[in-house]
């Protein structure tokens, strides 16, 4: 990779940063400083805008570079991943989006707290939301650092560290100055760029193979050295029983976790009604589904055109498959076309990371200020100060994320995204579904279900091979591995549901029928929704 790539990529990326900062400044000029404005952007985004923003929030660099890289290296097993990421949206659409929009105001805890004793429920749901967000955030920060090293050739530690610090500083600026309105527009811009980049590359790949998908698959299988096995499941997850159960665990976490991700839930509050929330999910399913279909073409295209050997040689995890593919499609390493396409892909990957971290930071600052601070503070603060708390929380979360990102810089943190989904599915989804659909659900059930999903999932990961006991672990030197799977979802998700049920049936108090009636009527009709 020559200096030209890096120069052009840096210029394009600086342009994106300039545009996003301009958006932030422009938005904060009109700022009113209300909680409605800061957390929900005034609730007046259109379904299409919100659909793009949801897609921008959800499609991380892990999807763009990671999944197509997995396909390029392991063929079909990478595709298995993307199916889970997409089908998850049906859970969101059918069970969550409209009802959450109708019942809540800003966060997940709002929905649960509306029919429970507020304080314990808010503390529990706030804690699990912040946990999920921080896990996801650290994964993105570390990813940003290694992306720089990969794409710009900046292998030095200093370049990585400054990238982590720069990304953290930018996300704090976006969130604390621009709130939800700036974050949403940044996500929309990013989603448009990402879709544009993916469409361009997909068309180029298909043109290269004369629109013959079959030929593309056959070439990829030949080039991979695995033959037809490349087009069937099993190359990555097909080994022993542990790795098979591991994939099932991950698949379950992916499909159930999306509906519990705090930064996804908070996006539904930016539209005026439940109907608009539904239509934004329909938009985002169209965009996300189309995007993952294109990553399939890009992944097999990278295997067929670049070849798995070259991809693996550049980065063992396959993260450079798409940039290398872009270089080749543009005409090769020394051509102008190759340089331009490579730089565009690199800049889009940066933009992707920035938009995703901004969304997560906003959601976690909302959890801190609206749920945790509001429950733990002395009851004499003015309501207006909540936004100030949220801004401060955004700075605090930024500092924590930068610190953890720097600490974990050299560690293999790819498991963190899967873990964030597993925690969301174990701690957030059960309490959300029980609150919306179970009349007998009580406060104790709610608290137990959150902690009953959160604690097992975190403990199981600490005892898993990703932390200790294998050469790839965080701490390869020690061995306190007692749980065989890398992803805890298969065990911790049922535990979360079980704990909620157990807490409810052992509860001394009965469920409040009237407040359940209110939740049910409001969730299905939108009466009294803000």
């Amino acid at each position, binding site marked *: 990779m020559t200096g030209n790539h890096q120069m052009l990529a840096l210029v394009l990326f600086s342009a994106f940063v300039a545009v996003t900062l301009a958006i932030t400044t422009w938005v904060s000029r009109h700022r009113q400083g209300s909680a409605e404005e800061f957390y929900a952007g005034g609730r*007046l985004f259109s379904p*299409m*805008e919100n659909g793009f923003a949801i897609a921008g929030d959800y499609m991380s660099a892990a999807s763009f570079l990671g999944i197509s890289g997995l396909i390029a290296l392991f063929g*079909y097993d990478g*595709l*298995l991943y993307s*199916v*889970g990421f*997409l*089908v998850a*949206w*049906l*859970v969101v*659409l*059918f*069970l969550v989006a409209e009802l959450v929009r109708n019942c809540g105001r800003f966060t997940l805890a709002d929905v649960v707290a509306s029919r429970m004793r507020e304080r314990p429920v808010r503390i529990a749901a706030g804690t699990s939301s912040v946990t999920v967000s921080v896990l996801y955030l650290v994964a993105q920060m570390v990813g940003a650092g290694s992306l720089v090293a990969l794409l710009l050739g900046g292998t030095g530690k200093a370049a990585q560290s400054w990238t982590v610090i720069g990304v953290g500083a930018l996300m704090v600026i976006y969130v604390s100055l621009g709130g939800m309105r700036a974050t949403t527009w940044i996500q929309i811009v990013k989603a448009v760029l990402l879709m544009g980049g993916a469409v361009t590359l997909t068309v180029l790949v298909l043109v290269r193979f004369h629109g013959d998908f*079959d030929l593309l*698959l*056959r070439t990829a*299988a030949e080039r991979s050295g695995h033959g*037809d*096995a490349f*087009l*069937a*499941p*099993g190359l990555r997850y*097909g080994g022993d029983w542990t790795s*098979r*159960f591991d994939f*099932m665990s991950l*698949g*379950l976490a992916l499909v159930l976790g999306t509906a519990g991700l705090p930064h996804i839930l908070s996006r539904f509050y930016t539209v*005026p*009604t439940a*109907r*608009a929330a*539904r*239509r934004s*999910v*329909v*938009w985002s*399913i*169209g965009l996300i*589904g189309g995007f*993952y*279909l294109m990553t399939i073409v890009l992944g097999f295209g990278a295997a067929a055109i670049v070849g798995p050997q070259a991809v693996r040689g550049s980065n063992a995890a396959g993260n450079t498959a798409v940039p290398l593919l872009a270089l080749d499609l543009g005409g090769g390493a020394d051509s102008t076309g190759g340089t331009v396409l490579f730089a565009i892909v690199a800049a889009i990957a940066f933009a992707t990371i920035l938009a995703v971290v901004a969304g997560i930071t906003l959601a976690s600052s909302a959890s801190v200020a609206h749920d945790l601070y509001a429950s733990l503070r002395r009851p004499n603060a003015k309501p207006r100060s909540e936004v100030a708390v949220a801004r401060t929380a955004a700075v605090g979360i930024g500092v924590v994320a930068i610190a953890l990102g720097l600490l974990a810089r050299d560690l293999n943190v790819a498991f963190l995204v899967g873990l964030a989904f597993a925690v969301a599915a174990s701690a957030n989804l059960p309490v959300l579904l029980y609150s919306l659909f179970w009349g007998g659900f009580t406060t104790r059930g709610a608290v137990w279900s959150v902690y009953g999903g959160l604690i097992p999932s975190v403990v199981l990961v600490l005892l898993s091979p990703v932390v200790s006991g294998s050469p790839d672990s965080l701490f390869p030197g020690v061995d306190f591995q007692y749980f065989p799977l890398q992803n805890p979802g298969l065990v911790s998700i049922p535990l979360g549901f079980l704990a909620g049920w157990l807490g409810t049936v052992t509860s001394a108090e009965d469920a409040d*029928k*009237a*407040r359940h*009636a*209110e939740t*049910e*009527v*409001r969730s*299905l*009709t*939108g*009466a*009294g*929704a803000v």
Partner: protein
Amino acid sequence: MVPFCPSLGMQSSAGRPSRREGGPESSAEAHEGRDTVPTRTGVGGDTRFDDPWYDALASGWGELDGTGAPAPAVPSARREQENRGGCAADVYLEVQRSAAFREVRSRYRRFVIPGVALFFSWYVGYVVTATMAPGFMARPVMGAVNVAMLAGLGQFLTTFLFTWAYARHARLRRDRAALDLRWDTQELTRGLRGGGS
């Protein structure tokens, strides 16, 4: 109809206040109203005013022209209670018991429960087959395309189909009735607050 259909914005809630006396418990009238008001109530992009919740003027009309009409039986019985929270809670319990609400709820459940069961078992079946029976998934179908590839692309296709079906069902079978109920419920709670204070 496609899921992305543009909504026809309704500029004001004309026609709504006249049905207000019926209350949520009169499902027959709600159904009748659904037929006689052909306008689709939609809420689109910049629609602060399409939404009855934002429409302060329209919500006041009910109080004005409703004076001569017999008050809804339930609220008038509750109106003597001083506790506003209790009143609102009673309204929600009453709405929850009403035939109109039970109809909306059962329409939602009758679609969503089988739908979730179907796509979830199809997804779990797909993942389990892919991990447990890779040999079956590798069986070639046509050219380089095998069972696994068809199943994976099938997941994409069914996801789009489920999305379309859900959006269509919600738009045609639930939206109107839910909006009527929302309107009626808010009228009842607001009427109570007015009476109590």
